[in-house]
């Protein structure tokens, strides 16, 4: 076979190319021909097709994601915004924190262990590429029904993969989510979040500048992993009947990644790089074109210098390979030797594969012949943009009209008791310890709060006790009922969770998991969720710093619930002031903050008791959320509250169960006069939390709430070894614990 060089392409304009098989649309191919003024070479086609895929180009989502920038609240904390590998926020004392959540959904369905493992690996490299030391990970997960046989295949593999990779990297797992719902049966969601810390001056960006600077590829050798994975996997619905579309799976090597992290941090410490980029989806195509596109000059790459694991790879395959654990750095010539020395110290293979040129083209050579000659911006940053049609689905009205108020409710104390136990033992509300005990939460020695807590909280400075807290949340049921409100509820919950630990919420990352953008209904859900999130972030003053979109989460015509997963990062000046969820001191008073309305649409109770989804989700009041957060933060800082737990799915009763079990202390609860016991216990009104207040602080605390106008209702006291609701029921903690802790082990073995 003759090599398809640029010259050859010029001479053979009529050679048919497999652009359609590579996922390009006719007009997209036309545009490539127009940009180049000739037909692309095979290698160029490979690059464009993979970089213009939905996954890399965000072509369907871009027009909506723009709002995150346009409506961004004024924030002094934002150091690097959307568009880089990850956003960076200032947390004070010269420290900057970067964090981002990403999806690895489809690969984790095909091969749960490796799919999830490489998902962790990928997000960690993103954080590393910003110049930061990765310090913690989180894993928001969604699976099909807990008792479905395929869940038993997918879940243990995913969990083992996340643990196997993250544990081996030495990154504490400080939280996440586990949600079961049959809508995720064929499309589990595996999202992974990483947090990194650096000093302001260490921030690095992905750009290649300085003519003559060397381009160094370092890390693992390049093999045939996931060739075409990005374009095929992420832009087409996975379909079992067409096994040819199954991509080669990527296999992770966490040990190699650990070396890559330490090696890269040492390189940063010695200030040896001008620009740096991790290799993730689209591999070298992405790294070289993005580096060149963001920089000032062009780039020339000798592709045959790339160290290979499989000598038979073609140049196109090398460009598209998604082999893991690789990074690409731009280094001034005088620093190359030292760079190589550090790589050698860490047993990391490093190779100069090219250099920055003074032109404005990305040129790639293979055995001396030119196979790529493109303007890099057209590959990396000026891909197609679609204004996809969207429309409110016609079933939306009927769904919202199907009010949960009509469902039959527990009335007697005995029925309430049974409902509590049913809720506590349901897979979504039960303890996730079977999963989280497979994750190292102690490594690095800075974990102050980890699961089960409202947010993960880590110390970032041992002297000053400065720390950060991160929580992720997302409720697909709420979003299905109303995607605008659902996205805001996800944001509000994560925000509230961070505040409940005593940290001040600062910034947002999000992973938007949706169905096909080519389906106007799914696209409407997406548009609404983006609008809701952008409006919500503006109202709360927490900018979106970065995130990820995962489309095509659907099987046939049936999409998953729209699932915006929102991560909120907060800062706490003194981690010793943090507030845990545990009820630890008998005699302390339990206060319910916020207002409870009858809001059962999309609730955990409606799912567990009636398998029902309908009506409207809880209302959102972001001003109230801000006020609640202020109270929680002040209460923690001034020592007025010893425990706090936000209220979300499962409502008040679920929060009580968790705080009691965590602290090993019971509670005596009195339903406020005139209130309905069932609604008080099971409603999911937003903007609420419970707190434990030492008696000596009661007056000070209620004065503060009163002065600021936050409803605070004393609902009980920490006492005994049962959860007792006066006049209704009493459940010994042992019985609750058995139900709470026994559920997942009995389902998963």
């Amino acid at each position: 076979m003759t090599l398809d060089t640029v010259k050859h392409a010029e001479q053979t304009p009529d050679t048919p190319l497999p652009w359609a098989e590579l996922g390009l649309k006719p007009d997209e191919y036309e545009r490539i021909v127009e940009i180049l003024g000739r037909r692309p070479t095979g290698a160029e086609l490979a690059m464009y097709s993979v970089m213009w895929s939905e996954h890399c180009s965000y072509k369907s989502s871009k027009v909506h994601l723009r709002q995150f920038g346009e409506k961004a609240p004024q924030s002094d904390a934002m150091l690097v915004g959307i568009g880089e590998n990850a956003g960076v926020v200032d947390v004070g004392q010269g420290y900057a924190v970067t964090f981002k959540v990403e999806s690895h959904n489809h690969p984790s369905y095909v091969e749960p262990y490796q799919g999830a493992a490489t998902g962790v690996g990928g997000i960690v490299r993103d954080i590393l590429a910003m110049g930061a030391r990765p310090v913690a990970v989180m894993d928001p997960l969604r699976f099909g029904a807990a008792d479905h046989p395929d869940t038993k295949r997918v879940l243990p593999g995913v969990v083992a993969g996340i643990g196997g990779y993250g544990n081996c990297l030495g990154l504490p797992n400080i939280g996440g989510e586990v949600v079961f719902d049959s809508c995720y049966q064929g499309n589990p969601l595996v999202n992974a979040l990483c947090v990194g810390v650096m000093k302001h001056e260490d921030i690095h960006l992905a750009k290649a500048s300085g003519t003559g600077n060397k381009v160094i590829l370092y890390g693992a050798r390049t093999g045939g992993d996931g060739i075409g994975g990005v374009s095929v996997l992420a832009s087409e619905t996975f379909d079992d009947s067409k096994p040819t579309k199954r991509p080669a799976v990527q296999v992770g090597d966490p040990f190699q990644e650990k070396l890559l992290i330490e090696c890269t941090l040492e390189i940063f410490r010695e200030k040896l790089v001008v620009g740096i980029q991790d290799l993730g989806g689209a591999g070298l195509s992405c790294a070289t074109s993005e580096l060149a596109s963001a920089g000032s000059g062009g780039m020339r790459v000798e592709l045959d210098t790339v160290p290979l694991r499989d000598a038979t790879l073609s140049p196109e395959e090398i460009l598209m390979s998604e082999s893991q654990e690789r990074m690409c750095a731009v280094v001034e010539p005088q620093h190359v030797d030292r760079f190589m020395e550090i790589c050698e110290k860490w047993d990391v293979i490093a190779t100069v594969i090219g250099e920055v040129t003074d032109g404005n083209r990305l040129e790639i050579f293979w055995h001396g012949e030119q196979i790529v000659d493109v303007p890099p911006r057209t590959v990396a940053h000026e891909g197609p943009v679609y204004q996809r049609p969207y429309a409110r689905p016609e079933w939306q009205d009927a769904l919202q009209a199907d009010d949960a108020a009509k469902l039959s409710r527990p009335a007697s104390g005995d029925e309430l008791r049974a409902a509590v136990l049913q809720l506590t033992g349901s897979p979504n509300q039960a303890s996730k310890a079977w999963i989280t005990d497979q994750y190292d939460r102690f490594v690095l020695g800075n974990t102050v709060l980890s699961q089960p807590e409202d947010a993960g909280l880590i110390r970032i400075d041992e002297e000053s006790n400065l720390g950060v807290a991160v929580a992720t949340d997302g409720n697909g049921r709420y979003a299905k009922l109303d995607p605008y409100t659902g996205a805001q509820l996800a944001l509000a919950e994560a925000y509230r969770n961070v505040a409940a630990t005593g940290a001040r919420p600062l910034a947002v990352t999000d992973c938007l998991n949706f169905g096909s953008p080519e389906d106007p209904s799914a696209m409407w859900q997406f548009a609404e969720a983006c609008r809701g999130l952008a409006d919500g972030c503006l109202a709360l003053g927490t900018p979106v710093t970065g995130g990820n979109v995962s489309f095509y989460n659907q099987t046939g015509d049936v999409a998953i619930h729209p699932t915006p997963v929102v991560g909120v990062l907060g800062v706490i000046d003194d981690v010793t002031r943090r507030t845990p969820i545990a009820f630890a001191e008998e005699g302390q008073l339990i206060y319910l903050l916020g207002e409870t309305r009858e809001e059962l649409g999309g609730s955990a109770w409606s799912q567990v008791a009636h398998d029902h989804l309908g009506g409207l989700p809880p209302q959102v009041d972001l001003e109230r959320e801000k006020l609640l957060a202020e109270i929680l933060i002040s209460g923690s800082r001034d020592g007025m509250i010893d425990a706090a737990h936000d209220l979300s799915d499962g409502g008040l009763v679920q929060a009580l169960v968790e705080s009691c079990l965590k602290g090993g202390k019971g509670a005596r609860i009195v339903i406020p006069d005139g209130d309905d016991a069932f609604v008080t216990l099971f409603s999911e009104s937003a903007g609420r939390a419970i707190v434990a207040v030492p008696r000596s602080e009661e007056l000070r605390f209620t004065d503060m709430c009163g002065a600021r106008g936050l409803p605070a209702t004393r609902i009980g006291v920490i006492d005994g070894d049962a959860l007792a609701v006066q006049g209704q029921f009493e459940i010994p903690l042992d019985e609750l614990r058995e139900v709470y802790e026994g559920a997942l082990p009995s389902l998963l073995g």
Partner: protein
Amino acid sequence: MARVVVDVMLKPEILDPQGQAVQRALPRLGFNGISDVRQGKRFELEVEGPVDEAALARIHTMAETFLANTVIEDFFVKVES
């Protein structure tokens, strides 16, 4: 009672970090002349009754659906003499 062995190896195109780690360590330990190492799994099955074609076919299915993950692994069934 007969023994059937199922060897499960990563497909050649799939990265084998374990084998690589072994191979990289060998020269340091003074063992040279090994150009590649792949690490896989070996299952020894004690089979009740005769290992006839039907039994082997069943074991083949078992290897394909359970012992090996054919997305990334190849497997080989053999009867131990």
